[in-house]
């Protein structure tokens, strides 16, 4: 006879709880999940075994089909896929590798939200039993994009509107138009069409038309209107770095001079045209912009503008009415110079929570014509919270009265120690102490201006905000100092 209360005689298996009903239910749910996962894993294992054992079995690709690419040109897809198919695929292994490579290329084209590959028996009427069709089921990304935004960065505030059309002509082209109004760049527009130039999608071309109105009144008593066109060929990847070859023609107009403008700025006012070829290399392998533990950032830039080679006229060619000046060939434009710039930044963790960062920027500008100086907009300007701190923005270098005229040679060096806030390492706020040095001159050698200080960094991705207390230690008499507190916003800091 059984008499209640009955004893629980079940042997507890697999740590099954015995008291709370909720706990028992949870335990069962977890157990079920575990079983399913195990089943799935064993299926995968079986499948991969099956595939691995049949790697050498003969198989050929009969056709490649891309489904769902309604807005993409067939010829463009063919140009991406054909080079991959050029390598013969005779076994299952080859077919799988080819499929993976095509899938990667499709994903790299930045046209698809979703790419899924499938192997099917070939539908071709003359197909042999070993022939398969590779079918990609894709979903294209939205073609139209419209965005309005308000941004703060590089010590200026901007409101902008951007419109983007992806895959404009069905060949992976992107058209982007942007209009912005801001505090320093008063207004700007930019229209760019970028398109792939090579089937491996490593080389892109870009045609760019832009116009902007910049306000230089705070340091050079004028405003600048620029309208230009740029054609760029860009090659490379994020890991290897990018090479950029660009041709740019831009018309600048310096005007709206302040009544107190210096004689040098008055001489510089008016229009100038630059027609230039430039070569840029950028590589950024840092894992973090503020406190990187590995990698480095480097940017090398070279530009040649104008550079007309003078061709003396033969004596018979000149007549009484033509001027006796030699004609010249070259890129044209008023500006004729060679410019080279280098920028690098490395930071490493020295102890837990403390990292050290070193940044160096330098540049040189050599005039190539009989004019002693390059036009004002092409000259270098340094100083300010994102450059040499404790000096006013663009407050260093050759100066005439209230105006920073810019220089032909410069370097700026920054060393900073970034630490976490004690007991709050997860905060986006960091403390730092820094020492900056810099010099900007007109192809002269002088003494560097040095400053030091400390402050806090607020990481406001991708923008960085800094509040610093700094003092200039050495300075040229012409430098405009910013003793005490200085606020900086920007992407790249010294």
């Amino acid at each position, binding site marked *: 006879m059984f008499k209640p209360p009955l004893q629980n005689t079940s042997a507890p298996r697999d740590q099954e709880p015995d008291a709370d009903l909720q706990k028992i239910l949870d335990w069962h749910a977890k157990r079920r999940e575990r079983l399913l996962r195990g089943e799935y894993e064993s299926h995968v294992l079986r499948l991969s075994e099956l595939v691995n054992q049949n790697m050498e079995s003969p198989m050929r690709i009969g056709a490649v089909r891309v489904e769902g690419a309604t807005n993409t040109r067939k010829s463009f897809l063919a140009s991406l896929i054909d080079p991959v198919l050029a390598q013969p695929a005779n076994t299952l292994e080859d077919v799988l590798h080819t499929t993976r490579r095509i899938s990667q290329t499709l994903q790299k084209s930045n046209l698809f939200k979703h790419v899924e590959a499938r192997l099917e028996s070939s539908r071709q009427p003359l197909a042999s039993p070993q022939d398969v069709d590779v079918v990609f089921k894709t979903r294209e990304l939205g073609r139209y994009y419209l965005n309005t935004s308000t941004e703060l960065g590089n010590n200026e505030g901007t409101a902008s509107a951007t419109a983007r059309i992806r895959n404009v002509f069905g060949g992976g082209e992107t058209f982007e138009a942007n209009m912005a109004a801001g505090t320093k760049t008063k207004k700007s527009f930019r229209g760019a069409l970028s398109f792939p130039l090579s089937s491996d999608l490593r080389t892109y071309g870009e045609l760019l038309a832009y116009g902007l109105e910049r306000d230089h009144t705070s340091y050079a008593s004028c405003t600048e209107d620029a309208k230009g066109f740029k054609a760029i060929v860009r090659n490379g990847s994020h890991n290897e770095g990018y090479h950029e070859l660009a041709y740019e023609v831009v018309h600048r107009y310096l005007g709206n001079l302040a009544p107190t403008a210096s004689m040098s700025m008055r001489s510089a006012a008016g229009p100038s045209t630059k027609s230039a070829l430039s070569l840029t290399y950028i590589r950024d392998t840092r894992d973090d912009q503020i406190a990187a533990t590995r990698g480095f950032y480097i940017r090398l830039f070279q530009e040649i503008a104008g550079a007309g080679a003078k061709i003396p006229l033969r004596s018979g060619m000149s007549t009484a009415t033509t001027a006796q000046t030699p004609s010249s060939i070259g890129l044209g434009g008023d500006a004729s110079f060679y410019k080279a710039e280098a920028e690098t930044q490395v930071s490493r963790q020295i102890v837990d929570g403390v990292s050290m960062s070193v940044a160096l920027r330098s540049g040189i500008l050599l005039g190539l014509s009989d004019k002693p100086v390059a036009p004002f907009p092409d000259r270098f300007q340094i100083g300010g919270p994102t450059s040499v701190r404790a000096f006013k923005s663009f407050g260093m270098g050759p100066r*005439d009265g209230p105006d920073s005229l810019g220089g032909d040679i410069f370097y700026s060096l920054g060393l900073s120690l970034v630490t976490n806030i004690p007991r709050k390492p997860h905060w986006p706020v960091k403390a730092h102490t820094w020492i900056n040095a810099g010099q*900007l001159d007109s192809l002269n050698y002088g003494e560097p*201006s040095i400053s030091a200080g400390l402050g806090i960094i607020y990481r406001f991705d991708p923008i960085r905000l800094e509040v610093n207390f700094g003092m200039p*230690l050495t300075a*040229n*008499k012409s430098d405009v100092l910013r003793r005490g507190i200085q606020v900086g916003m920007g992407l790249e800091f010294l």
Partner: protein
Amino acid sequence: MLALPTPLANLFALFPLRTYPPILPLSKKPCTAPTLWVQSPVSPDDTLSADVECLKWQAYLAFRGLTAIHLRTDIHPEGCIDRRLPNLHTPSAEIEDGELLPARLIPTWVDSQKGAVDPNLEGYTDEAARDESRAWVTLLEGAVHAGLLLVQPQPSYLKQILAFSFTPSLSFTWSSADQSGTPSSNALPGPSFQTLVTPPPPPATGLTSPIPPSGVRVSPNAVMTRYRDAISALSERLGTDRWFLGSSEPTPLDALAFAYLHCILEFENDSIRVEVSRRANLVAWEKRVRDTVKAAFTVV
């Protein structure tokens, strides 16, 4: 205003710990002599500007007896006071860089150098001549200027598109001779047909067209007839006199007349030039005055 506490101000004053000499711009030239900023001459070695307004002031300075005036032709009007050439850059004892004067202040500066002229007669022989000079000024600035404007080549469409703040070519621009007028805050444009031709011409597109009114509809024949009449009258009035209106010394009217006559004679368009070149007295007068004006300037 928030003042910095004294101890903090004292601390701040210690920095920078070391100060080096200022970095001076290499391209800057000190102002050692009065320098007139003008529109470039037709040929680089010439000292007479190709612009009527600039040439008028060159003649004015020369007529007032100033010599060894430097000339700079590399400054764009945007760099000038009132965004208009010419400007006079004068050395100054008080200001290191010298003082920059707009055209309207040039007479005051010349008066300070050479003594003032009788403000009632302005250098003319009598009041009647002074009043008559006003009519000649109006004729030159109106009928003659309109004739020049008619044959002036228009800037290319590409140039108009490229230039953000497009400034029209300066040649033959002419501001009002009113020297006491308020400075215009705007860059040129100079006078157009709307202001030069009387009665003002109608727009090129009008009420009967769907396009909003724009441009001007001028009759080239009417403008050229008035131009021819004006030159003929000018020639008759000068006769064989040494200066216009029988003055013994050059007057502001002579400066203006010289500026126009010189520009016309240098101009490539035959239809404009022939009206002056066939009048021997005007040609001879212009040549004599040209030598006087040229002698007063040196290009730096």
